[in-house]
């Protein structure tokens, strides 16, 4: 079993190296970044920061509990070793979150987070039933169709936060949820796509990108629509902020599509991710990023689509 963890460490190091960053730099950088981000969240979103923390932690756990991985572990190890591995992995991920919650004296949330880490060990992530989850994207596959189903587990959290925002009359929380919806939409474009699914389109690269962006904007509108309605009914006075977030969301969706295809068919590399992240903190960077990603995307798609 210990060799499994050695192998995981090797894989992670190889991934970091391929990503263009040495592991010796990546690990300390990650720890620093984690605590800086945590402080920022707890300062800027004091009221609901622990909830956000729980949500982020659950997203990470869910991503390592996918069906293929779970089945592989089950086929390699006996029942006892399987649960031991899952428990160790979940607790390793939980440690920084727990430390920060304890530091913040959020003991109740720390206990909750610990139990989430435990419960994820026992969630059967392989599908033993053949039912498919209906989505509003049946006619527009595939990023949002697959993404919606992958992230459906967060729907209760989002609903809970919406109800909470109306209950306490907190418009900022509702606006924050709108931003979260767009973050979730952006995550749908994170998966590497096989070139075949671009190749099948009988469109030149420019039209292909336009088609993808159009689909992305329509689909994100469908997902953000109910929140927009709630904001309109409950917090109408916030419309300038709503427009700003919705507009920024659209621009970021467009940017991530261009960024994804600028690295296609490989995954985005570190400089591309840094440039994309910079656009969050410094929106004028979009003026540089969008044309740059567009030109690269056309270059990458041309041999596949023409």
């Amino acid at each position, binding site marked *: 079993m210990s060799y499994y963890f050695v192998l995981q460490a090797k894989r992670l190091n190889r991934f970091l190296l391929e990503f263009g960053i040495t592991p010796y730099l990546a690990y300390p950088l990650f720890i620093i970044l984690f605590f800086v981000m945590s402080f920022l969240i707890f300062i800027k979103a004091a009221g609901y920061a622990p909830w956000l923390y729980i949500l982020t932690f659950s997203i990470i756990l869910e991503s390592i509990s996918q*069906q293929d991985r779970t089945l592989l572990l089950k086929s390699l190890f006996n029942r006892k070793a399987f649960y031991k591995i899952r428990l160790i992995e979940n607790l390793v991920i939980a440690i920084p979150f727990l430390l920060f919650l304890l530091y913040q004296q959020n003991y109740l949330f720390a206990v909750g987070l610990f139990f989430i880490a435990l419960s994820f060990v026992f969630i059967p992530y392989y*599908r033993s039933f*053949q*039912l*498919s*989850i209906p989505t509003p994207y*049946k*006619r527009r*596959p*595939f990023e949002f*169709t*697959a993404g919606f*189903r*992958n992230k459906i587990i967060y729907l209760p959290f989002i609903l809970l936060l919406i109800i909470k925002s109306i209950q306490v009359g907190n418009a900022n929380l509702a606006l924050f949820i709108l931003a979260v919806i767009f973050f979730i939409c952006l995550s749908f474009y994170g998966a590497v796509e*096989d*070139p*075949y*699914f671009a*190749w*099948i*389109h*009988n469109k030149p690269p420019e039209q292909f990108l336009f088609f993808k962006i159009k689909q992305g904007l329509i689909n994100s509108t469908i997902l953000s629509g109910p929140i927009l309605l709630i904001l309109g009914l409950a917090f109408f006075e916030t419309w300038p902020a709503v427009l700003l977030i919705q507009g920024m969301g659209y621009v970021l969706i467009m940017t991530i599509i261009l960024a994804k295809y600028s690295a296609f068919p490989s995954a985005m590399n570190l400089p591309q991710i840094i440039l994309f992240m910079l656009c969050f903190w410094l929106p004028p960077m979009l003026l540089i990023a969008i044309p740059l990603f567009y030109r690269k995307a056309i270059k990458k798609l041309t*041999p*596949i*689509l*023409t």
Partner: protein
Amino acid sequence: MIKLIHLSKSFGKKKVLHDINLLFEKGKVYGIVGSNGSGKTTLFRCIAGLEDHDGELEYEHTPLKDHLGFLQTHPIIMSRITGWEYLKLVSISRGIDTENFQEQNVFELPLNEYADTYSTGMKKKLALMGTLLQQNKVLILDEPFNGVDIQSNLLIIELINQLKDLNKIILISSHIFSTLRDTCDEIHLLRSGIIEKSVMKENFIELDTEMKSIILGDNNKRIKLS
């Protein structure tokens, strides 16, 4: 008509296709045979435009890929996408706005279930159905019979014959010689990236015998069975 002129392909220093010159005409079915690693899939990927290559490829409509349906040996199916949604995706990608997939579900696939939970054969059938729905002029079917049950094999042979009657150009690779015998007009034998032989329908039996002796040789005697 598709014309391959001096088509070659290398991966680094390793040359995998050597100076391929072939002609594929409308209304005909062509078989490409060869052992594993002989270059069949690479040749198909070059024709499809999924691999760059040296040499030329001529076709009356450019780009060829916009008129070509490609069934891959191991079809790639995304997770959390139903069979219906997969068919919708491959149809809209070619600008075909259809949704009557259930009516055309010749393989009786459970289209409302996630396609990544399908068996190997079912995935193959779904991908083939998607390729057929695209109404392409040219079809490349890489191992269409692999992993598919015998009834569906018969159905696929029948569908290929129907496509031939519709004047399509069809390229097939298969390790099951009988399926090629039933469908192809001409078979090209590919070995180590070289077209070693092209055989017309009337000489398929000779090719079958020859292939068996080449492939089998004395190899079965190398392993000590007890």
